[in-house]
C-alpha cells in the first residue's frame, strides 16, 4: 500500500565498537537499537577497549572522564583531581537515566532480545586474556577481522 512501509528489506548495519568509555559506549548501543526498531539487521563487533562494553565484570562500571575533553568544560587541572572521573560518570549516568535509556547491561539484553548479533574481537581478547565466558551471555561468538569482513558483506559499517 505504501512504498515506505517501514520494511527495510535486506538492509544491514555493522557497528564496530572500539571505545570503552561510558560516553562512547552509548552511540553504538543507541544506533544498534534504533536500526533494529527500524527493521534493519544489526551486527555489533566489539574490539579493543570496546570489549569493556560486553565484559561482564566491567560493563556496569564504564566511566566517563572530563580529562582532555574540552567539550565538557572542566579545566584539565581540575579534571585530574581524584574523584573527578567518578563525579562526571555519576552525573552522566543520571542524565542517561532521565532520558529513559537503560544501563549498559540492560541495553545489551534489549539488543539481543531484538535480534541484534554481537561478537567479540578475537585478537583483542587474546591480548587481554579474555574468553567468551568473560563476556555478556548474549554475545554470539568470538571472531577475527577476516570473519568480520565476511559478516559485513553488503552492510553499512560504522566505526565508533
Amino acid at each position: 500500500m505504501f512504498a515506505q512501509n517501514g520494511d527495510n528489506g535486506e538492509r544491514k548495519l555493522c557497528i564496530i565498537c572500539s571505545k570503552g568509555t561510558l560516553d562512547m559506549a552509548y552511540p553504538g548501543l543507541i544506533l544498534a537499537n534504533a536500526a533494529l526498531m527500524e527493521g534493519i539487521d544489526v551486527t555489533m563487533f566489539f574490539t579493543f577497549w570496546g570489549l569493556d562494553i560486553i565484559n561482564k565484570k566491567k560493563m556496569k562500571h564504564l566511566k566517563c572522564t572530563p580529562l582532555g575533553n574540552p567539550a565538557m568544560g572542566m579545566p584539565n587541572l581540575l579534571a585530574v583531581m581524584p574523584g573527578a572521573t567518578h563525579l562526571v560518570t555519576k552525573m552522566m549516568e543520571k542524565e542517561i537515566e532521565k532520558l529513559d535509556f537503560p544501563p549498559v547491561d540492560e541495553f545489551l539484553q534489549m539488543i539481543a532480545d531484538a535480534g541484534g548479533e554481537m561478537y567479540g574481537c578475537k585478537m583483542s581478547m587474546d591480548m587481554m586474556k579474555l574468553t567468551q565466558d568473560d563476556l555478556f551471555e548474549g554475545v554470539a561468538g568470538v571472531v577475527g577481522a577476516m570473519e568480520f569482513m565476511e559478516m559485513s558483506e553488503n552492510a553499512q559499517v560504522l566505526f565508533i
Partner: protein
Amino acid sequence: MTTLEIVGKQVEFDEEGFLKNPDDWTRELAEALAAEMGITLTPKHWQVIEFCRQDFQRTGESPTLRRITKESGVTTKELYKLFPKGPAKKVARIAGLKKPTGCI
C-alpha cells in the same frame, strides 16, 4: 497525502502511511492495516495496540518501544515477534498514531 477506502470508509494517510486523523481509527481498520503487513492480530497484539492508544491520549506522542515494553507487560522479545522487522513504525501505523520520534 493518500486517501484510501478501507473497510468501507475513506481514510486519509500521510505520505509515510501514518493515519492523518487519529479519530478515523477503528478496530476493523487496525485489522486491515495489520493484514496489509502480513500480521494477524491476536490478543497479545491488542494488548500493545491498546496500551499505545491510551498512552498517546495521555501524552500526545507515540510511545517509544522502551516505554511499551516497560509499561504494557509485553517483553522486547515478544514485541519483535508480534511486529517483526521494524516494530516501532508498524505498531504506530496499526494503532493509528503518528510516526514515533523517540530514539529508544
